[in-house]
């Protein structure tokens, strides 16, 4: 016990003495948590549109002003040549072209129908599909308005219509930050925890201090605990700063569920994660090797965790990877507890899975770690 305490003291001394590591551990996650949710925005605004109006009638004017007033579109170009508009797309000045044919108003009034042409630049897929969808919605609204103008509701029977009213549960205003911030917090705790623990033990190998440690009667468990506990504590501190300062004060996110439940899960999650770091370090001899392996594993863990794209829409093989990834479960639990207020009953399954991960990675790492080569 005395040995372990001394090991911990030594470890903290080294961490606090490292002038570049300390800001890296605490400041970087906070900066990232402030910046990343603002950038990882699913709502697309400021789509540049070029309108080619061959008609120049009051109706076409009405449609154009409706589009520009929606807030989603910025009128990049207005003219009467499709080729000129296409040039705009080629120069990346415009994302969409709406072509209004000649005789738009006349045909609409006389024939009761008219066609519009939309050309979308699909290089940026998200922007293209959302932009196209927004534009379609605006045109349909416009169409409905035109019909209302023409049909006298008292003379004719109203046309039967199904109207859908939706309400968003757990996140009524569809604020994507409520969804992203807890996930990104998991992401940051994961990165710092895995990298720091993997690099720390390898550093002892690289510098050669492990050689001196190995000839002492220190027990294997003492050495490993001495390495894991500091990063376990640092992980909890980072999570707390992120949850109580950045998420609450900056984004106004207050967990709906129990804070204790979150911390309980975090405690087990960190054990599993540090086990991964320990495992990487037992297989590496230099910090460079450890960094490369950790980077490879973290990329997979983070991109296949359901943070950015839902796991349900992944192909089968990707789902297998996502479900064998501890990060997925923590993100899921975070969102359930923070947004939905899930209780222990709802996430008990995830607790068991995470305990399994913790046992698996740590057992593997401890079996692999040898004081003798």
């Amino acid at each position, binding site marked *: 016990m*005395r*040995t372990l305490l*001394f090991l911990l003291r*030594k470890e903290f*001394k*080294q961490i606090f*003495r*490292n002038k570049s590591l300390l800001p890296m551990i605490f400041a970087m996650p906070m900066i990232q948590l402030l910046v990343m949710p603002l950038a990882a925005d699913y709502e697309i605004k400021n789509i540049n549109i070029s309108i080619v109006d061959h008609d120049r009638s009051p109706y076409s004017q009405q449609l154009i002003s409706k589009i520009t007033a929606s807030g989603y579109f910025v009128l990049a170009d207005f003219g009467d040549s499709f080729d000129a508009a296409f040039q705009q797309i080629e120069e990346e000045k415009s994302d969409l072209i709406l072509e209004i044919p000649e005789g738009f108003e006349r045909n609409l009034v006389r024939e009761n129908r008219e066609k519009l042409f939309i050309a979308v630049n699909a290089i940026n897929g998200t922007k293209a599909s959302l932009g196209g969808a927004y534009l379609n919605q605006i045109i349909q609204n416009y169409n409905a308005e035109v019909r209302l103008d023409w049909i006298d509701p008292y003379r004719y029977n109203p046309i039967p219509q199904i109207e859908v009213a939706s309400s968003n549960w757990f996140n009524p205003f569809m604020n994507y930050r409520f969804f992203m911030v807890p996930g990104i917090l998991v992401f940051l705790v994961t990165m710092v925890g895995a990298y720091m623990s993997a690099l720390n033990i390898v550093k002892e190998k690289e*510098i*050669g*201090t492990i*050689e*001196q*440690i*190995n*000839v*002492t*009667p*220190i027990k294997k468990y003492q050495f490993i605990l001495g390495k894991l506990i500091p990063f376990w504590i640092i992980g909890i501190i980072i999570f707390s700063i992120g949850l109580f300062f950045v998420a609450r004060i900056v984004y106004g996110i207050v967990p709906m569920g129990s804070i204790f439940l979150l911390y309980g899960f975090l405690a087990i999650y960190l054990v599993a994660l540090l086990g991964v770091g320990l495992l990487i370090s037992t297989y590496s001899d230099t910090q460079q090797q450890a960094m490369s392996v950790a980077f490879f594993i973290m990329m997979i863990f983070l991109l296949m965790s359901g943070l950015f794209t839902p796991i349900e829409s992944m192909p089968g093989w990707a789902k297998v990877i996502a479900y064998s990834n501890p990060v997925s479960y923590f993100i899921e639990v975070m969102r359930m507890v923070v947004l939905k207020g899930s209780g222990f009953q709802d996430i008990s399954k995830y607790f068991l899975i995470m305990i399994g991960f913790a046992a698996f990675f740590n057992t593997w790492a401890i079996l692999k770690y040898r*004081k*003798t*080569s």
Partner: protein
Amino acid sequence: MVTLENISKTYNEGALTAVDKVSFEVKKGELFGLIGPDGAGKTSIFRMLTTVLLPDGGNASVNGLDVVTGYKEIRKQVGYMPGKFSLYQDLTVEENLNFFATLFNTTVKENYDLIKEIYVQIEPFKTRKAGKLSGGMKQKLALCCALIHRPTVLFLDEPTTGVDTVSRKEFWDMLKRLKVQGITILVSTPYMDEATLCERIALIQSGKIMSIDTPAAIIKAYPEPLFAVKSEKMSVLLQDLRKQESVKSCFAFGEYHHLTFQENSPEVQPSLRKNLEKLGHAAIELKEITPTIEDCFIQLMNH
């Protein structure tokens, strides 16, 4: 105290033999030197004896404990100073010492008398980080850390490599004083001139022990008379000497070339001198000398 019996170690799945059936014994309280060039297998032997490397064959024991089965006990009883400085560079002198004392379940105070003499020299810098110490001071600190648990056997792997001459001399003086305390010391070094400072030495080359004895006995065992030659043009002289039929071997050795003759008859010296003069060498000096450990090493290596 330390016994090795046919101990072997190979690397790269047997492709490289680092230690080849090495056997020797170090007696209690002895200052034993393992002398050999870089890559001779010294570090591998030390790492096996300190239980951090498993031997591929043979037996070895330290204090009567087998290095494979009794490793837990051995680790409590021995002190090891690796060739590479292996203390925490970001901890201070004092913190390093306290840290290693704690790992061995002891305190600096308890064994202060053992390290006192060495520690007082680095005490003025006790709040300095170990990484900021000079080479000689680093080595003193490493020795203190290896001694802090009062080991009965001390393993020092190339302690004087990369240390200046004055510090090297000081270091050997320290070792002699430790020996008085009854500590068995195993030291390895690539410097042949340090061999005579040990009580007994083992000469090692390519993983094989060539000779084990006291330095004096090894020198005495040198099989033939050895001569030193010097002239004005040393590099030409070396080539000319090697061409002489009467010369058996000739090596550059600092200021002189050391040589042995095929036959040691009384007329061989004057005739060599005459031949050299014919080849245009001036100020020739030729004398019989007592061999050094290095001469013995070269002689053993070539046979």
